[in-house]
């Protein structure tokens, strides 16, 4: 029982992190048909912005604000200069473009910071572990769960209740119609990209003290976020949430029972969901 709770909590922390990534990825894919393989790079860059800020200012909380801000600027810039030219040309071109960018970003990071793991200490007050039942749980993972829950709740309320959320949901189901209603799609796209990149940057910086910070940290988490997007259904924030929890729990319980089946379990979950519901759990669109 206690063990189940412990594994469940660490699955929640990891799932929360993946959710921050998958939410942006899912909306970008659902709205703009952009399969953004550079989304993991935003996550990695967020972590490295955190490392740089820690190095210069020595303040984790400043890093926590700077990383999402800088990354949304990067996302908006990339959208305006590059991705915008490719809308409507099919996702394969974007696979190539964004894969190119992910190679560039990982190498830039390796160039500037070297190939090794970067030390990324948790801030004072979030170190150590707290006792829960008969085990001790790292405080920092509680913090990760809290941030993910806070951001997730804000996103869900915005997605369901705000005008901006309504525009995005409408855009996912029929882009042209939204444009015909007089909404400036180009601006919506740029802002969505900025938001998605900012969330990924946030995920990166909170991942810093929790997982390792190194060039290539983007690849593994990107593939998990993609799995989440597909399990949840393209262009759905609720789907990303449920999918991320499923995948988070699968990747926490799996290794406990048998180290080797962890990945098979994660992708097995994805395969089973897709076989039963080909459009994902909350798929809004064919």
């Amino acid at each position: 029982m206690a063990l189940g709770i412990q594994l469940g909590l660490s699955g929640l922390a990891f799932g929360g992190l993946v959710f921050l990534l998958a939410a942006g990825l899912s909306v970008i894919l659902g709205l703009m048909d952009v399969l953004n393989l550079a989304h993991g790079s935003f996550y990695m860059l967020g972590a490295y912005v955190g490392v740089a800020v820690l190095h210069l200012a020595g303040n984790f909380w400043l890093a926590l604000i700077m990383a999402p801000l800088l990354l949304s600027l990067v996302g908006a810039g990339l959208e305006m200069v590059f991705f915008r030219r490719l809308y409507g040309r099919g996702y394969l071109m974007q696979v190539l473009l964004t894969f190119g960018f992910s190679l560039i970003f990982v190498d830039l990071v390796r160039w500037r910071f070297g190939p090794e793991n970067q030390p990324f200490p948790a801030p004072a007050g979030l170190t150590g572990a707290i006792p829960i039942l008969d085990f001790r749980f790292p405080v920092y993972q509680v913090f990760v769960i809290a941030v993910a829950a806070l951001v997730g709740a804000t996103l869900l309320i915005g997605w369901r209740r705000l005008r901006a959320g309504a525009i995005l949901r409408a855009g996912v189901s029929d882009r042209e119609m939204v444009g015909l209603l007089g909404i400036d799609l180009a601006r919506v796209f740029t802002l969505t990209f900025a938001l998605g990149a900012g969330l990924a940057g946030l995920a990166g910086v909170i991942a810093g003290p929790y997982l390792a910070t190194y060039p290539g940290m983007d690849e593994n988490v990107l593939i998990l976020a993609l799995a989440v997007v597909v399990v949840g259904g393209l262009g759905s924030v609720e789907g990303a949430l449920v999918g991320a929890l499923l995948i988070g729990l699968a990747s926490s319980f799996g290794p406990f029972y048998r180290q080797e089946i962890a990945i098979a379990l994660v992708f097995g979950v994805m395969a089973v969901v897709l076989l039963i519901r080909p459009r994902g759990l909350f798929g809004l669109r064919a």
Partner: protein
Amino acid sequence: MTEIAAEAPALSLVVRAGHVARYGLLAGALLLLASLSFWAPTFWVSIAIQALIFAVFAMSVDLLLGYTGLPSLGQAAFYGTGGLVCAKLALASPGLGLLPLVGASVAGAALLAVPFGALSLRVRGVYFLMLTLAFGQVLWSLAFQTPREWLGGSDGLIGVVRPPLDLLQRIDEQLWLVVGVSPRVAAVRHFYNLTLVAAILTFTALSLLVRSPFGRTLEGIRENEHRMRALGCPTFRYQLAVFVVAGALAGLAGCLLTLFNGFANSSSLYWTNSGLVLIAAIVGGVRTLAGPALGAFVVLIAQDALSSYSQRWPLLLGAIFVGFVLFLPNGLLSTGRVLHALARAGRAGHWS
């Protein structure tokens, strides 16, 4: 009207020049490849072997993606399976000839492709991409975690000995007696010729396949699956058949790679291989067969050459991909078409 009439002969000349250029290029490429081991150093011959193997793999992707409209991110599963079957068999019964090894690898990959394809084909588009990725990763992790005695775990199966290539060797020796030049590269030469033959056979077989009624049906399914089904075409059966053929070819490529390297490893099933081969196909230009083969050379040589000249090769490779998308969105083989269109637009003014 008179303008167009005056345009016609000049235009047809351009088109014909295009045809001549295309066949000229193909013949030139063949000559270059066939003579490679006579003048190139061993390093480049081994790169060419890997590129030819990768080209077979990329052509299998083109059959799926370009001709049938099925973007798979799980093709490495068959590539890896072919390689593992080949290694396992070669180690289990030493002295087995080339054909049984290749045959078993191809059959193993094709057999795997039947359930893999039947399940993946329940969805289309991005979902197909992701479902093939999921199955591919499941297979990779299964191959990775099998007991060490089976597939060697993370070390893989090592010590595979290449079967003798008597026939190729004899033809080859006769040939260079006639030509009167002795080859520069001796050691990997016969294996190089084997991969060249495999690549040419694959190219020819697929060219014939896509021009056959079967291939035309595939194009129909790609363009409008619903209409083809309404016309009474069993589209699922066609797509599954193509998936199995593509899987078998990927298995062939995997088998050749194992024979070249002397080992096979479960990491060849990893999804990045599927991604890289997909990118090679897109870079070359899908639905051309020659394009993906060319793309395989470009990607492999770019990787090897850039990495030996610059530490910053991933950055350069990434920049190349970005440049491709921005300036050659239809792939390398579209260069001629782009120039042609420019020439036509320039000649005719901009009224078109």
